[in-house]
């Protein structure tokens, strides 16, 4: 019996592989499992090859994992196109369509897995349902039968899905499912690969994705305006919001481009409303000038960047973490803006709410770095408990302050000045991208510029002590350390748990606040370390460099980084930790000078 299982399937457009994945994850959720479903397509919009990976487990799933436990191959050409996305190992059970005509011993893989089964999927579909379209239900039957994957829940799902299509269609699909089940029962596996029963918690779990959660969180946080432009893989945030934001008294603009989108958001914020935009790399690059405007005009806004592979158009449908530098540094001049990143689907909720809170509290644009994986894969998550969240509203001038002669950019101890909005009598001021004095009048004085830069940068200092925006795991005294963030953090967490279970003395730090760099948090983390690795999915290892900018790092401070598309699997991180542990044993620390 397994507690954790990874299934990968690939076929061509008509094979229904992706809808089989959807059926499986729904069934898993209903039965009380946790799961994660990632889909991947060829470059065609419709048709072409498609694949999915489902990881299902009795405890929360942290990342899509590495090598498959089960591979389902509807045709070899399509399967092989996904390369590293569907890795097969010697322990993988490989099920493939018999009609492909390949002998089990001759399958076109670099490894020869222990269990390889040629299953007459098409034949079973035709025989049971009279149509090849039922093939994916045969596959569901096989998976349910061999791996104990929610027999009942899958059947319920089939019933719900085909209920409206008439008795004939429904029964055909039911029969196909039964045929798969029967085939599995008649051909027992040589190894017990059944999934352990779920650890029931009674909670009503749901299947959702990061983009949907982001939209929900924004509405929860009080977002009243969205301005943006479609772009993969961020579009769904707008698509979800345009359904619901009106009910909250808000509105939404699908703008003519990304610049207009964020400019409208700046306008809405100036008008006194919480506002956001969402985009991906190319759109983010376009927005940089207006982000600078929001910085100097000290107007709150949230800008979500759902990262995809770059540079430029890059790999629009694949994940990457290579927009960190752009998030922190794009836009000319001395601008500093908070950058946050969620570590998984359900974490998007809290991070988005936090982003709005920080934006309003400090009157600043805030960047949220999501990524394609988090945004578009489906996760089974526990319902979000919203009770711990407090909502922050921007500081407004009091009637006394307005009466005394309002100074929009008053230099205060905190650096935050009360912010009026049109409609407020006595609060009129000139907002501008031009440097200004406390009143808001344009200035070209170097002295005033220095003071205002100080105000704008120092007001963010309190963020640097927000250790609640970090996750720390492992022994405080461990000599080995891992740092990871965003979409890679789950794999790092899993790897660190595995490594610790193997006796490797390692601890983990996951910043959700990526910038400004919380120097003291890192210093504390580094205190015990002799070796540290930063795990992330960018070619340059961008967080690794960013930390060095601000903090003195352990002597052996390395990067485990790789370009996007295929995430780094936990096993690769464990492997690196093992090497670090060995080198530690061989070269004990030189005493601190």
């Amino acid at each position, binding site marked *: 019996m397994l507690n954790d299982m990874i299934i990968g399937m690939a076929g061509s457009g008509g094979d229904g592989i992706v809808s089989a994945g959807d059926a499986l994850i729904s069934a898993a959720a209903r039965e009380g499992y946790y799961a994660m479903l990632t889909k991947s397509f060829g470059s065609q919009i419709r048709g072409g090859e498609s694949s999915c990976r489902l990881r299902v487990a009795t405890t929360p799933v942290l990342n899509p994992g590495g090598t498959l436990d089960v591979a389902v191959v509807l045709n070899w050409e399509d399967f092989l196109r996904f390369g590293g996305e569907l890795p097969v190992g010697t322990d993988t059970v490989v099920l493939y369509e018999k009609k492909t005509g390949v002998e089990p011993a001759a399958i076109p893989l670099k490894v020869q897995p222990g269990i390889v089964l040629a299953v007459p999927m098409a034949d079973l579909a035709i025989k049971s349902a009279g149509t090849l379209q039922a093939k994916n239900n045969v596959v569901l039957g096989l998976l349910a039968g061999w791996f104990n994957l929610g027999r009942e829940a899958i059947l319920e799902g089939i019933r719900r899905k085909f209920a409206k299509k008439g008795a004939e269609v429904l029964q055909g699909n039911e029969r196909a499912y039964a045929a798969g089940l029967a085939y599995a029962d008649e051909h027992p596996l040589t190894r017990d690969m059944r999934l352990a029963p779920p650890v029931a918690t009674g909670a009503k779990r749901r299947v959702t994705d990061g983009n949907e959660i982001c939209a929900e969180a924004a509405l929860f946080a009080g977002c009243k305006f969205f301005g943006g432009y479609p772009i993969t893989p961020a579009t769904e945030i707008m698509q979800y919001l345009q359904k619901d934001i009106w*009910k909250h008294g808000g509105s939404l603009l699908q703008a003519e481009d990304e610049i*207009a989108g964020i400019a409208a958001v700046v306008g809405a914020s100036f*008008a006194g*409303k919480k506002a956001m935009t969402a985009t991906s790399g190319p759109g983010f690059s376009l927005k940089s000038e207006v982000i600078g405007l929001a910085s100097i005009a000290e107007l709150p806004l949230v800008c979500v960047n759902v990262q995809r592979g770059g540079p430029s158009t890059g790999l629009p449908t694949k994940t990457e973490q290579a927009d960190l530098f752009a998030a922190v540094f794009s836009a000319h001049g001395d601008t500093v803006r908070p950058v946050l990143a969620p570590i998984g689907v359900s974490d998007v909720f809290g991070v988005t709410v936090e982003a709005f809170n920080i934006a309003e509290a400090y009157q600043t644009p805030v960047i949220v770095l999501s990524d394609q994986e988090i945004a578009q894969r489906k996760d089974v998550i526990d319902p979000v408990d919203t009770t711990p969240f407090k909502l922050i509203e921007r500081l407004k001038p009091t009637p006394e302050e307005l009466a005394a002669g309002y100074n929009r950019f008053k230099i205060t101890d905190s650096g935050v000045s009360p912010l009026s909005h049109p409609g407020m009598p006595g609060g009129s001021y000139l907002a501008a991208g031009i440097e200004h004095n406390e009143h808001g009048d344009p200035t070209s004085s170097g002295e005033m510029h220095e003071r205002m830069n100080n105000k704008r940068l120092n007001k963010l200092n309190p963020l640097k002590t927000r250790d609640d925006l970090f996750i720390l795991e492992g022994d405080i005294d461990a000599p080995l350390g891992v740092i990871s963030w965003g979409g890679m953090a789950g794999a790092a967490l899993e790897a660190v748990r595995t490594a610790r279970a193997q006796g490797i003395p390692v601890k983990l730090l996951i910043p959700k606040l990526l910038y400004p760099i919380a120097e003291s948090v890192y210093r504390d983390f580094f205190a015990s370390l002799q070796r540290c690795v930063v795990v992330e999915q960018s070619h340059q290892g961008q967080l690794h460099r960013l930390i060095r900018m601000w903090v003195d790092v352990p002597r052996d401070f390395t990067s485990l980084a790789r370009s996007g598309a295929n995430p780094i699997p936990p096993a690769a991180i464990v492997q690196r930790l093992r090497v670090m542990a060995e080198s530690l044993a061989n070269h004990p620390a030189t005493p601190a000078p």
Partner: protein
Amino acid sequence: MSVPSTTDCGCAPSAAAPLTIKDFRSDLKPIWCPGCGDYGVVTALYRALVNIGRPAHEVAFISGIGCSSRIPGYTTAYGFNTVHGRALPVAQGIKMANPDLLVLVAGGDGDGFSIGGGHVPHAIRRNLDLTYIVMDNHIYGLTKGQMSPTTPRGAKTNSTTYGSLEEPVNPLLYVLAYGAGFVAQGLPADMEGLTKMIEAAIRYPGFSFVNIQSPCVTFGDPNDQMKVQKAKMKKLADLGHDPTNRLRAMDLAQAYGTELYTGIFYQNPTPPETYDQMIRARQAELQAK
């Protein structure tokens, strides 16, 4: 035009006492060159706002970057001197976030029809209730005299030593093609006409556009200054133009750069529902569900 008092933004309702120009003139001293046409524009605007009667704090006044774009700072409205070319999108966000505000937008020919030109058709087809004023001086004033999109072909400027090779844009014809419901052209040399025109534009319920031939004394064509303009101008009203005839308006607009027509080219006699009204309706409908 319905002039709703602001209610959902915690603001006081409109002031009752009659307003004067003083209520709209700010303490900031304009830093335009002596003789710049923009002085006349801001004066006409003060007067129009007095006539409209909304208190300054219920007015949001948005501009881009340029000499002309400095205008919000010289008023007591909530001003926003944004970045070059983005005044219209910012203004749309403001109006959508708070439809109760009176939202004015202003800028130069470069700001509006060069870098900002991509936003104009979309602002117009969305038809939010905004008034957009362009101070068209056929030059980049703030950056000291380069060719602007309305610089006539052949003109020598600091960036076209041998003469511009490009046909100029035609702001009037463009916005008519974009479907604007109110399109007019005025001159600071005709203060009375300009004031009325701005007032009418603000009162028009929907997107309105006023192109102002506002001369640049420092870098502009010496033959395109106030006096010459005053002599050259032809009032559309005097020509008997029917401002509800859109095709005729487009035909007249073709003369931009040749004839100096002033007045209302086009005003939709049956203004359609505005975008802000549609938004409110959608909010109400979905909230009722």
